[in-house]
Every structure is written in C-alpha cells, then in structure tokens.
C-alpha cells in the first residue's frame, strides 16, 4: 500500500508524457507539425504520430469535402439587364494544408470568404454574358463548369480544390416574378380562348359538314327519284303511243269524250248551248235534220 502512491504518480506522468509526444491523425484529417510557429512537417497519413513535446505543436485540418452555401441568394444581372437571384453552393476541400495554412492562417471562415469572392465574381461574369433562359436551362452546365474551373485555378493558390460549383436556385426577383405570373396568366387565357374557339370552330365544321351531307343526300335522292319518274313517264308515253297510234282519229274522238266527261262534271259548270249541235238534232225535228244539217 505504501508503494501505491508512486505507482499512480508514475502512471499519470507516463500518460502526460505520452499525450505530449504522441498524437493521432484521423482518416478525415491532415496535420501540420509546427516547431516554434514554423511549419516543420505535413502529415497526410492517418494514424499515430510523434512529435517533440513542448517545442512542437500540431494542428489538424478537416480534409473532407466541405460545403459552402450562401445564406442569402446573390443578385446578378444577365444580358439585357434582367436581374436574377442566384443561390449556389460550393463543394471544396483542402488539398494542400501547408499552402492553405500559409494563405488563410487555416481559418475556414477566411477561406470561405475568399471562396465566395472568387466564385461570385466568376458567376457575375458568366451571368452577365448570358440570358436568363441560358442560365436557367441551356447553359447551366457550362456556367457551372466554367465557374468551377476558374475558381479552381484561382483557389489552388490557397491550397483549396473546388470540387463542384452548383447553381441551386436561379430565381427571378419578386417584382419580376409578379410580371411572370401575369404573363403566365395571359398565356393561359390565350390557350383557354384558343381551345374554346377551336372547339366552336370544330363544332361548326362538323355541323356544316353534316348539313352539306344532308343537302347532298337529298339532292342525289331527288335526282334519282326524278330519273325513276322520268323513266316511268317515258314508258307510259311509249305504251300510250303504241296503243293510240293504231287509230289516231278514233283516239282523238275517244279521248275528247273522256275529257268532256271529266271537264264538265258539276252544277257549277254552266253551259250556254245552241240547239243547233248534233246532239240536239232531234230536239226540234224528229227526223233529225234540224240540228246538224241545217
């Protein structure tokens, strides 16, 4: 029991020594070993490492891909002075810890400030050379690619790699949005009117077509009917002619008689007669000579 105190003391001393001599570098990290504030060594391999106690200090850096996301969207002017609000995010990581430390004192805030300056400048250039439609649709990739390249080139000097620059939101400012809404509304109205009027036109066309068909059908039917009737008339005429031409004189007489009969057939027909006609020849003279042969 008496020896217990020294044992503890020795253990604590050992731990103290160990902790000031050894350090671990995580899988996600790189480290810089400083000797009197001077960069002595850069450690890129994870694991257990050693340093001199007291005179050497270690600083760890996160080597994962980091995100920088603007809190507020940036306002850029595109071609034709149309403003857009752009919200982009940047994926970056430290590739050269020494350079990084020398340039920005290893301060992430300072680094992101530099990132933001460089990238918003590059974006401003790219947006200024393009129309809204280009940046929203056609050339989005190109914008992102070129900004990334430019920024990457620039920021290598501070030991940072730009993995990706991505446009998240490209929106129109509020006052422009309102006019877009109005335009959308007008456009829909146009479409609606077009639909309605083409509907009416289509309907009218169908009706007119139906009317035309009706006319055609009736006219053709009338034509065919007349043909049939004409045919009948012709055959009747032929029949009459054939029969009556046997004795044309008798036909004239016979037909006249029939015509008389059907012409004078009511009390309303008033005949003013002379008793000199053949019919009345016996009226005055029983010999029958008075009327006709006077």
């Amino acid at each position, binding site marked *: *029991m008496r*020896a*217990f105190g*020294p044992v503890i003391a020795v253990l604590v001393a050992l731990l103290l*020594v160990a902790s000031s*001599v*050894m350090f671990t570098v995580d*899988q*996600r990290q790189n480290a810089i070993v400083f000797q009197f504030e001077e960069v002595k060594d850069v450690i890129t391999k*994870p*694991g*257990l490492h*050693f340093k001199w106690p007291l005179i050497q200090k270690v600083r760890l850096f*996160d080597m*994962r*891909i980091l995100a920088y996301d603007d809190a507020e969207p940036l306002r850029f002017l595109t071609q034709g002075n149309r403003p857009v609000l752009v919200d982009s995010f940047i994926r970056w990581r430290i590739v050269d810890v020494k350079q990084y430390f020398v340039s920005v004192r290893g301060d992430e805030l300072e680094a992101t400030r530099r990132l933001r300056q460089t990238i918003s400048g590059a974006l401003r250039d790219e947006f200024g050379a393009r129309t809204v*439609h280009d940046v929203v*649709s*056609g050339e989005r990739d190109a914008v992102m690619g070129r900004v990334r390249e430019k920024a990457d080139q620039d920021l290598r000097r501070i030991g940072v790699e730009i993995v*990706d620059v991505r*446009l*998240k*939101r*490209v*929106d129109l400012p509020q006052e422009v*949005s309102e006019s877009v*809404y109005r335009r*959308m509304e007008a456009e829909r*109205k146009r*479409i609606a009117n077009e*639909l*309605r009027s083409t509907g009416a036109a289509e*309907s009218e066309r*169908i*009706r007119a077509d139906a009317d035309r068909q009706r006319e055609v059908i009736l006219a053709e*039917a009338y034509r*065919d*009917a007349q043909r*049939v*009737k004409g045919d*009948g008339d012709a*055959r009747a005429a032929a*029949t*009459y002619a054939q*029969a009556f031409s*046997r*004795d044309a004189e*008798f036909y004239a007489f*016979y037909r006249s008689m029939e015509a008389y009969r059907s012409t*004078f*057939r009511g*009390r*309303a*027909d*008033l*005949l*003013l*007669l002379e*008793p000199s006609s053949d*019919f009345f020849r016996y009226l005055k003279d029983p010999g029958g000579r008075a009327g006709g042969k006077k």
Partner: protein
Amino acid sequence: MSLNDPNWGRGSRGPGGNQGPPDLDELWRNFNRKLNDLFGGRRGGGGDIPPMPPSGRMLGGGAGVLVALVVVIWLASGFYVVDAASRGVVLTFGKFSEITDPGLRWRMPFPIQSHEVVNLSQVRTLEVGYRNSVKTKVLKESLMLTDDENIVDLQFAVQYVVTDAQAWLFNNRRPEEVAMLTAEAAMREIIGKSKMDAILYEGQDNIANQAQVLMQQILDNYKTGISLSRVTIQNAQPPEQVQAAFDDAVKAGQDRERQKNEGQAYANDVIPRARGAAARLTQEAEGYKARVVANAEGEASRFRQVLTEYSKAPAITRERIYIETLQSVLSSTSKILVDTRASGNLLYLPLDKLMQQSGVSGLTESQASQRSSDAALPIDPGPRSRDSLRNRERGER
C-alpha cells in the same frame, strides 16, 4: 508502430530517458507484466517477462488489484454492438482499419481504437419543398423556374440508402446536408430544362427519373456512398397566383371536347334523317313510276279493247259514245239552251248572277247531286231550273 511494440517508447524517451531513476524502470516492467498477463489470455502470446525483483511482488498486493480493475474496465469499454441493419467501422489511431459485421464486437479501447456505426438498411428520406405534409409548403424551395420561363410549384421526395459506410463517413462533412443540397440543385436543373406543360401534365415520371440520374451522378462525384432508391414528385402545380387561370385552361379543353361532341351529336341527328328522307324520295319515285306505267298500260289496254269493238261497227259505236258522253256531261251540269236565230243578238244573260245562283244552289244541292245527276231531266224547284224551263219554253216557241 503499435503500443505493444517493445521499441515504441525508445524514441520518445529521448536522451534524458536513459538517466531516469532505476525504480521507474522496475515499476514499468512490473506494469508491463500485469498488462501482458491480462492480454496474454486473449492474445495467446505472453511478452518476454524479465525476472522479477522481490520488491515487485510486494507491490502486487491491494494496489495491483485496483490497477487490474481499472484495466478491466478500460478494456471493457471496447465492447460495442452493431445492429443487424448496420456495419461498424473501426479506426485505429484515427486510421481506418476494418469494417465489422453485426453482433457484439470488441475493439481496442479508447485511445487506440474507436468505432462508428453506420446504418446501411435504413431508407432515409429528404423532403424538398415541403415538410411532413405536402400542405405545409416551403415556397422558397418549391417555386422553380422552367425552360419557358414560367414558375412551377413542385414538391418532391428523395429516398436513399447508404451503401458505402466508409465513403459516407470519410469523404464529406455532413453528408445528409450534401444530399439535400444536391437533390434541390439537380431537380432545379432538370426543371430548368423542361417545359411547364410537360412538368404539370404528362412528363412527371420522366422528370423524376432524369433528376434521379443527375443526383446520383453528382453524389457519386462527391463520393458520398449514397445510393438513391427513389425520387418521387409529390405534387406539381402552377403557383397559387395563377392557379385559377390554369384551371380555366383545363376547363376550356373540356369545353372544346363538349362542343365537338355537340357538333357530332347534331351531325348524328341530321344525316340519318336526311338518309331517311332520301329513302322516302326514292321509294315515292318508284311508286310513281309503277303507278304511271300501270295506268298507261291499263288505259292502253282499255283503248285497244274499245278500238277492237269500234272497228267492227265504227259509225254506231261513235254515235253511241258521243251521245252517252254528252248525256252524262249535260245531265250533271247547269245549262242554258239558247236558240240564237230566234232571239237574235238582244238576248240578255245575267251571267254573273246565274253563276252566283248556281254556286249557292250547288252548295245546297251537293248532297243531292247523286240523285239529281241520275235523273235524265232535273225537275228541281230552284230558280235556275225555272229559268232553264223558261228558256226551254222560249226555245220551243
């Protein structure tokens, strides 16, 4: 270098370390032996234990037990559980050393090894443009600009699983946030290349697929270890400000269909009717033809028959027909017999009056016409009859 390497302490001790007090050396060896005893059972290999000084055994007493206890607790802190859905990732001094399967696992305790557990089966969901329910929109996220410079209100969800625990842990800071940013950026890019109508009405699946492909590409570029399982568009609609106009346009489309149908209905009404009327015309014409031809044939036949008889006795037949005809004509009509030679040209006939009377009496007599026409000589007491009688008398005189 590992802690158990017998040389590990040499470098750190430095030049001053060799001049350390002798009992420190001994204590160290003692501690090492105890440690090796404990490790020995597990590791199956004892260290090279130097012969122990007698004083070491004295130290072994109560303090030894206490130290052993601390060591046991320290070692026990190396146990951890990996559940069935997960994998453990073990780091040795911060360096990745292995991936462990589910179960109760042991790693070397604290400063030496550490572990992290990553769930590989859990389907993680990102909600973009809304939270919890589609009704609680986040307009800042959901309003997007389309190719034709319209604005669309779109909510979508992304489901993903982590397939590579190592990549998930080591390559990105806050990978969940990365996934969210990527999802939004990719969807906006696809929407920016699509037309409003395609987004709203037909192409939603297509857009979701394209967005998924793009998201996966970006995430692979970041080496996040994420595998997307689904991107679903929950809701795509025009912004509230213009909703009414869009609804009206949809209604207009239906109106158009309605009008077309009405037109078609009219056509379906008119054309069959016309066909019916046409059929009637045709049939009537056929009927007419049949009638006319039959009439002609009938009359011709009658004439021929009469002619046959007539040719046998022409004079008498002609006379008979003539008289018969005149009889039937005169018996049914009103007549005035005027002997022009007797009365000269001074005869006055009030023709219009006569016509009037015959018209009036014609009306009253129409019922009796049948009877009177049969009679050879009408003996009606009407004024016209009297007139005609008078005329006759006059004629006879």
